[in-house]
């Protein structure tokens, strides 16, 4: 099954390489990996989705935790989380179709972020399932290009994968 891991990592050159190298070497399969700034200076946060058994997911977390630059790893798969993916979708769209496309994506709380002469870029955030559904809905119109961030996640309530302060 899919496991979602959150990792607090030191923002230093080569950290992403270390994490990626670990996955490659141990033959763990990454579904997605996102990394970006966190609330603390010098600390980034990664959201890693792996397709693994419960034991393998534990070993992934244990191996990640051994990297010097990784400060904390939490497997949030079985915790209540907010998990989101961002997608930009370029859809073929003649001028007269802009209205219907606009209405269609509004149902997904998505929006048209850019308008070209015969295409538009739809910007959507949501769960992976939501975005998959949106893509399927747009597909008959002609999906020209998709770029997705992969999952970012945060634990609900007060207890996250955060620093003590």
């Amino acid at each position, binding site marked *: 099954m899919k496991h979602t891991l959150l990792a607090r990592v030191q923002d230093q050159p*080569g950290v992403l*390489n*270390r994490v990626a*190298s670990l996955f490659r*070497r141990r033959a763990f399969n990454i579904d997605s990996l996102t990394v970006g700034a966190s609330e603390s200076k010098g600390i980034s946060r990664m959201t890693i989705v792996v397709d693994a058994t419960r*034991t393998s997911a*534990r*070993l992934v977390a*244990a*191996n990640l*935790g*051994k*990297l*010097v630059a990784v400060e904390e790893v939490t497997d949030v798969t079985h915790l209540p989380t907010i998990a989101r993916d961002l997608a930009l979708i370029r859809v073929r769209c003649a001028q007269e179709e802009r209205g219907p496309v606009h209405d269609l994506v509004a149902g997904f709380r998505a929006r048209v972020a850019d308008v070209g002469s015969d295409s538009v870029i739809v910007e959507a955030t949501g769960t992976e399932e939501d975005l998959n559904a949106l893509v399927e809905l747009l597909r008959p119109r002609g999906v020209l290009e998709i770029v997705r961030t992969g999952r970012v996640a945060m634990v609900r309530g007060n207890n996250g994968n955060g620093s003590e302060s």
Partner: protein
Amino acid sequence: MAEAARRRRTGGETMSGAEILWECLVREGVDTVFGYPGGAILPAYDALGRFPIHHVLVRHEQGAAHVADGYARASGRVGVAVATSGPGATNLTTGIATAMLDSVPTVFITGQVPSKLLGTDAFQETDVTGITLPITKHNELVTDVTRLAAALREAFAIARSGRPGPVLVDICKDVQQARTTFEWPEDPARSGWSAPAPDPGQLARAADMIAASERPLILAGHGIVRAGASHILTALAEKADIPVALTLLGLGGFPASHSLSLGMMGMHGEAYVNRAIQRADLIIALGMRFDDRVTGKLETFARHARKIHVELDPSEIGKNVPVDVALQADVREALEALVPLVPSRHHRAWLEEIAEGREDTRARDLLQQPDDGRLYAAHVIRELWRATGGNALVVTDVGQHQMWEAQYYPHERPRSLVTSGGLGTMGFALPAAIGAKMACPDAEVWVVAGDGGFQMTQCELATLRQENLDVKIAVVNNGFLGMVRQWQEFFYEKRYSATPLLSPDFAALAAAYGLPGCTVTSRSGMEAAIAAMRASPQGGLIDFRVEREEAVYPMVPSGADIGDMIRRPAQAPAEEGATA
């Protein structure tokens, strides 16, 4: 003088990166380093003479890495090797990987091209932190002199902490030349991970399982040696009357002469040990990682046993073998907490059952076979053990002789055997023995190597001579890459592809390096040669021309059930007094 000069450097003054490097090493307690100079590390070598550090010049950087490794294994202190950029650094890598697989605390210092030239394919530039990323516990490229002291402080802390391992610090040439105010960080900002205190609930469960077990068995590994847990392991074994089997790297962690000691398990462990594993109802695995050379076929490994795993490294727990009680902890701390919880017991029936298997093993032992006077490696090792009273510090290479050493040289003390287990690095023995001798100058250090592996790093004979070290070398010479030949004999219908081996006259080779050397071709010459070598104050080499096609018995074929071993055919026991 150097010491006085050093004392004046109290911090807060301007120093070059090169000086900071050595000053940090001195403060970490380093008095000896092993290395080979070159362009990108020249500023460091230029400053070296001003510090109380003895530099040992090796003949190849792989040797430097193994020397540092042997130094660390024999002493428990951090071993340090130094090399230049490019080929100097890439030559280290076999030794770094060796230290990684066996969790040896080592620090590697490499010079790197000036920071402005990074990424330009400059002369002798390689991406050393990239190359060593998967074979180090941690590494860092230092491009700014103000970062250097902290990077080195962290390197030593990380190398020592948790499950120890190699750390590499790659220092740009201009960083060595640049000057900055020296500030020694008292506490390293990053020191790597360490194990939590043992969980009381898991401890209680472990104690309950031990109390309920009728056929318990302890499998002890390198972690016992690392943690200095031999005494508490003995206390556990004696209190609960539990036999102890050891991994290759665990040998010496439990005294071989102890009545509860079974010896080595696994691929070349004795058959009764592996049978005990398969018959046990409880496995207590202490500081070992269920390596494939230990478990054989995982599906059939210790099927009837519940399993307790005490292990420092969380990523080793459940990796190969599912366990019932997982105790992530320092093995010594865990045992100190566990022993009081465990009831005193006797397991007479279980120990008798194991003892019966021992009789059968004894009957098949080569040393019990009718005496034909021929020289077998087993005789050599057993005579080494007898002559040294079992008190030598033995450093082996990798192959058949390594397994014979494990079988015929019983070790009583931790760190009395230095051997490359995880990586199985041929060429390890001679350089590692140089390190072991420098770490333990009072020890009687013996190299036991094959004719194949010895030739891989025999250039270090010059290092040995230059340092005037008394290291005694036994080359177990059978004219083959013996272990590979054995696999070809057993599994490839005796097609000896690329295993027959021509060697130099090793005794003459030793003499060329200014070391005593002799050749032994028969059993009758063995004892006197070993006695003479023991008396030699400058060490030397004995070339033992042993039986060419002897195999290491017993053997679990790779990936087979460990209970299913290839064994030496049983023969009638020898006449009394006929054995060595």
